Every structure is written in structure tokens, then in C-alpha cells.
């Protein structure tokens, strides 16, 4: 089964598939500590369609990075998946062994980590690191490896002479681009990016975002893009998922979410950014701090900070409600059709 996944000819544009690339159902990740169990990710469910750009937004500690590691099966103890499934083209990755996972990883699904400086090996040239990745996944002809390495560097706008460069010889933006080039070596169907632009300046950040979008349109891979900066993905993502305290508080089409945010937390996040244009208005941000996940609030996890809190929010955890194509975890939308819970 896993082999069938990996048989695709690399470098080809894949035909459009109707079924989702990734189906995540009720995924929960727990940190099992001596002091107790910390539920870092709770019952997260979503799909990623082929060629889709899904952005996951949340504050630090909301579980967004843990979720990524859960999807890619890169969790280390004490973190473990306590329930749920991650189906990649119907294969549940949670059930696979390391050997079986190795076939899927990098070829069909690759990851771009937050800090390229730490993700790249400082004592190996970029070319050598590309070669390693390709050898590990079955490309062995020297000529082929070189040809492909030159190709991917050109794709991200770096002169192929830098195959001989070491990471410290490249600027932050170039390092991050070469990480993306590396993720594209096998033209995977899904690239997962964990805050790839957070170490970059605004100018480099914008050009990297534009580049990711260009590549995505050309090669039709799906992207899961994790960030803490909502405004960054406003123009690039198809759908936006807002996470708070390990749960999905709102998930819907990006444009709609920006124009009509439903969840009080999303509304608060929107009002937390000073704008560079328009009138200067006094902002307040969101008072308080995210809850300690070892002792989450009994009801809605946002209730202690919520400006629209109701008595039942403090006792009952809200289910997800479906509102205008957006799913919202908030009792304010109770009158509507209940999705789950």
C-alpha cells in the first residue's frame, strides 16, 4: 500500500484528484508527563484537498506545531498520539511502521522547518544535503541527482552555483528558499511548512510568500502553512484554520473568515493588528493569557478571555457549529445546525 503511494514519477505534474490528499479525523496528541497528562491537541479534524493552501494560525502554545508533528509522525516522547487518524490518500499514517513511513516521507510529503539555519547541516554544502536526501529515497544516478538539484534551485530563484555553498554563505532568505527547494526534490503532493518566514524581514518574507504561491500554482502541491501571523496568509491561503488551546476554534475560507470572523477569538486576533493604512485607532488586543493545558477550563477554553462569555460557556465545552460554510466552536451559533458533539 505504502509502495503504491511512492510509485509516482517525480517531476511530473499530477492529475487533479477529487479526493482529499490528507484526511485528519479526531486527532489528539498528549504529552504524558509525571505531573499529569497535557492534551496539546484535541479532536482536530480537517481535510486538505489536492493543490490547496491551508493556513493554520494560532498563538504560541496553541498546539499548532504539535499538530504538524502529529501529522508527519515526528512526535517524540513524552508526546504521543492518543487517538484519531491521519489518512494520506487513504493510508492511515498513524498505523505505519518507521520503515513504511520512510517511503512516504519526502517523496510524497515533505516538511520545511521553522529555522533553516538549524535545519540545514552547517558542515555540508547545499548540494551534498540535496544528494543525501535523494539517495535516501532512491535516486542514485549522479547525473540525475545533479540535474534535479540544479532544477529545484532554479525553481526557487537561487543561482545553481550555490550547490557548492555552505549554509553560512547564504542569507537567511536564501537558506529558507533552499529548504523549500529541498522539500521539492521529489515534487511531493503535500508540503508542510512551519513558520518558514518567521526569521525573515518583511521584504524577504513577502517575496518568499509570493514564491511559494507561484511554485504551488505551477506544480499543484498542497500546502499546510503554520504561522502566528494572520495578516501574512491573508492573500495566499485558500482556507484558514484558527487554533486556540489545542482545539480548532474556527475553520473556513480565508476571505470569508477575514470579512466575517465568527469566533470571538478570531475577532480578537483581527483587532490585535495595528494597520499600516487607514485611520489610527486605539486597539486593545485580547486581555489575559492562554490557559494552562494541564488544567484547561471546564467549558469553552476561551471563556476566561472572551468578551461575549455566557454562563453555559464556563461549564459546557462547545461543539463545532456550521455557519455559512465555516465551522465555529462557539455557543453563540447554537441556534444553527450542529455539526458534531
Amino acid at each position: 500500500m505504502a509502495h503504491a503511494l511512492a510509485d509516482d514519477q517525480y517531476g511530473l505534474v499530477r492529475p487533479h484528484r477529487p479526493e482529499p490528499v490528507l484526511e485528519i479525523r479526531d486527532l489528539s496528541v498528549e504529552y504524558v508527563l509525571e505531573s499529569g497528562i497535557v492534551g496539546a491537541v484535541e479532536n482536530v479534524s480537517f481535510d486538505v484537498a489536492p493543490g490547496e493552501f491551508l493556513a493554520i494560525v494560532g498563538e504560541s502554545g496553541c498546539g499548532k506545531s504539535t499538530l504538524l508533528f502529529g501529522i508527519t509522525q515526528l512526535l517524540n516522547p513524552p508526546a504521543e498520539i492518543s487517538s484519531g487518524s491521519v489518512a494520506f490518500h487513504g493510508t492511515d499514517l498513524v498505523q505505519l511502521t518507521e520503515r513504511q513511513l520512510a517511503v512516504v516521507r519526502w517523496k510524497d510529503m515533505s516538511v520545511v522547518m521553522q529555522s533553516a539555519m538549524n535545519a540545514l547541516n552547517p558542515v555540508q554544502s547545499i548540494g551534498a544535503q540535496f544528494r543525501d536526501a535523494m539517495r535516501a529515497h532512491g535516486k542514485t544516478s549522479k547525473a540525475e541527482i545533479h540535474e534535479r538539484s540544479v532544477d529545484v534551485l532554479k525553481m526557487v530563484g537561487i543561482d545553481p552555483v550555490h550547490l557548492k555553498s555552505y549554509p553560512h554563505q547564504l542569507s537567511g532568505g536564501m537558506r529558507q528558499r533552499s529548504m523549500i527547494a529541498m522539500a521539492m526534490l521529489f515534487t511531493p503532493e503535500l508540503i508542510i511548512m512551519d513558520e518558514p518566514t518567521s526569521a525573515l524581514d518583511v521584504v524577504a518574507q513577502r517575496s518568499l510568500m509570493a514564491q511559494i504561491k507561484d511554485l504551488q500554482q505551477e506544480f499543484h502541491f498542497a500546502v499546510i502553512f503554520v504561522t502566528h501571523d494572520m495578516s501574512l496568509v491573508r492573500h495566499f491561503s485558500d482556507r484558514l484554520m484558527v487554533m486556540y488551546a489545542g482545539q480548532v476554534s474556527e475553520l473556513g475560507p480565508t476571505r470569508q473568515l477575514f470579512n466575517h470572523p465568527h469566533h470571538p477569538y478570531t475577532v480578537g486576533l483581527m483587532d490585535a493588528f495595528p494597520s499600516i493604512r487607514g485611520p489610527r485607532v486605539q486597539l486593545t488586543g485580547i486581555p489575559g493569557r492562554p490557559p494552562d493545558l494541564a488544567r484547561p477550563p471546564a467549558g469553552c477554553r476561551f471563556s476566561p478571555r472572551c468578551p461575549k462569555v455566557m454562563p453555559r460557556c464556563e461549564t459546557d465545552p462547545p461543539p463545532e457549529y456550521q455557519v455559512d460554510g465555516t465551522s465555529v466552536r462557539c455557543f453563540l451559533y447554537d441556534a444553527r445546525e450542529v455539526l458534531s458533539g
Partner: protein
Amino acid sequence: MAELQTQPGPQPVGSGPEPLLRVDRMSRHFKIGNALSRHTLHAVDDMSFSVGEREIVAIAGESGSGKSTVARVLAKIYKPTTGEVYFQGKPLSAFRSRQAKLRYSGLVPMVFQDPFASMNPVFRVSHGVMRALKLHRPELTNEQRFAEAARVFDAVGLNPGAEVLQRYPHELSGGQRQRVGFAQALAMRPKLILADEPVSMLDVSIRIGLLNVMAKLRDEEGVSILYITHDLASARYVADRLIVMYAGHLVETGPAEEVLSNPRHPYTQLLLSAVPDPKAELNVGAETDRGEPPRVINPTPGCRFRWRCPLAIAICHEVTPQLAELAPAHSAACHVAQSGAEVKAF
């Protein structure tokens, strides 16, 4: 203490009374390389600006633009290579004795970027602020010190101050820790707080609260703040005046709102166009700038932005542009803008 012998530096033309802080043609260079290859890195070159009383001045620029070096020179961590900095009319080099240095660092304290690394985890948060009070305001009794610590904690929004003082750093969130940083600075009754990227490590929902604290310190405590940031939107939100730096040069300065609504320097325009703004439509043109700021090693004269500037003309490659006033209080160092042509680079 002996009367400090000061020689007033050359006053900028048309300036009024001496401002709180005046930086006069200050440069800071670093020697790099080894015995075989000696180079000079020009972190800050020929920079002049001032900070008045009760004023928040933002210095904005990309990483490597020299903005943190400016803060460190002002904090007396580095000495300027050339030029001089005047605080209340006295040159910084005159604050030489231990006592004078201590007095200066109390008047011009610094708040650091990383609230997680800048506090000692084994002491209660009262430790830092009480020590600062003991050093800088020795006339206070123990009770007065505690009362003062509680007052400054309340002033930065850590209420109740007396209770928060008893906590340990790990019991506080990032935003609260950064408020502790400001409270410590405030305890010394400063005139000017140097804040080097104070909110960049905080979550977005918390940043605004801290920017509001900065505005409150200015309005209620009468403190000036030099706010160093790469985030133009937050600079616009909180700052009265804005200084834009590129590759060690001051390229544009003026009232924050005026500079951002009517930027004259192509680099300011580039920075402004790159700020993600969810409320506006996407404005990435076909020609997206992919250049990066240079490291300024052994520079030759000329505008340092010329390689990325779509408007560069011959003179930009030969003569370093000087700051010139283009509108009231609004200056830019750009040959094209100074020639009177309309600058619309990005």
C-alpha cells in the same frame, strides 16, 4: 561630582533648545577578518537624529540595518567610532566615572528583546526591580523601595503590583515578563527608555497591550522611548516620529504618520509595500523585489540602496546622498527625491 566639562557640539541649523538626546554624525565600525584580511564593517555611518522630551521615536529597518547598534551605542555598550552623542547637552564620553555611568544607565535604561532570557529564573521578579532601586535610588528605605516597586508594577499594568512582585518568572507569561522589563526601567525614574524590539517575541494578541503600555509611560510618566523595531505598523501605532535605516544609513525621518503616508525614499516605499495588510488588497507587482540588504564592508561612496533601487541614476553610484528636508520636519537622503522628481519606486 565635579562639574562635567562639556563642549557643546555643533548645533543643527535652525534647531531650538537642546533636545533630550542628540546623536551627532555618529558612526560605529567593527573590525572583522584576520591578520591577512582586514576589513571594516560599517554598522552605522554618519547618523544624526534627536529625541525630545515625552516622545516616542521609532527606528525601523531590516535586520543588519544597524538599528540595534544605535541602541547599544546609546546604552554605552559600544563607543561610537566617530561622532558624539549628547544627553541633556552633555557628551556621552563625559560620563566616565563609575557614578556618572550608573547615573546615566538609570536615566537611559534598556529593555531587551527576549523576556525569557532576560530574567533570572531562580529569583522572584521583585529581585531585579528592588536591586535596581537599591543601586539607583539609595535614599529610599526598604519599605519605600517596595512601595515604589509596587507602584511601577501597577503603572505597567501588572496589578496588583504588590502581589505580582512575589511571583517567579516562570509564573508569568511573555507579555507579563516584558512588562516587568518596562517596570524595572521605570523604577529608575528614567528620561529615555531604549526598547530594542520589545514586542517581537510576543504573541500578536499580547503585543498591542505592551504598545499601549509604552504610550501610557509617555503620557503619564513623561518618559521618552526609543522604539527599535522592524514592524512599521507597530511603529505607526505608537511612535511620534519615525527613523528609517538602511545598511547603516539614516535614509528617511519625520513625523511617523507623515513618513508612512507620504514616503519619499524608495527604500521606505519598498518596506511599506511589503507590510502584510489584511485590510488591503494584495499589491505584489509583477516585479517583486528579491534583493537583500548588503553587509557594509569597506564601502565606497554612493547610495547603499542603489543596487535595489529602480530609480537609481548616475550620481547615486558616486555620491552618498545627505539628509535634506523635503517637507516640514520630513527629511530623506535620496538624490532623486531631492531633485524634486516624484519618487514612486514600489
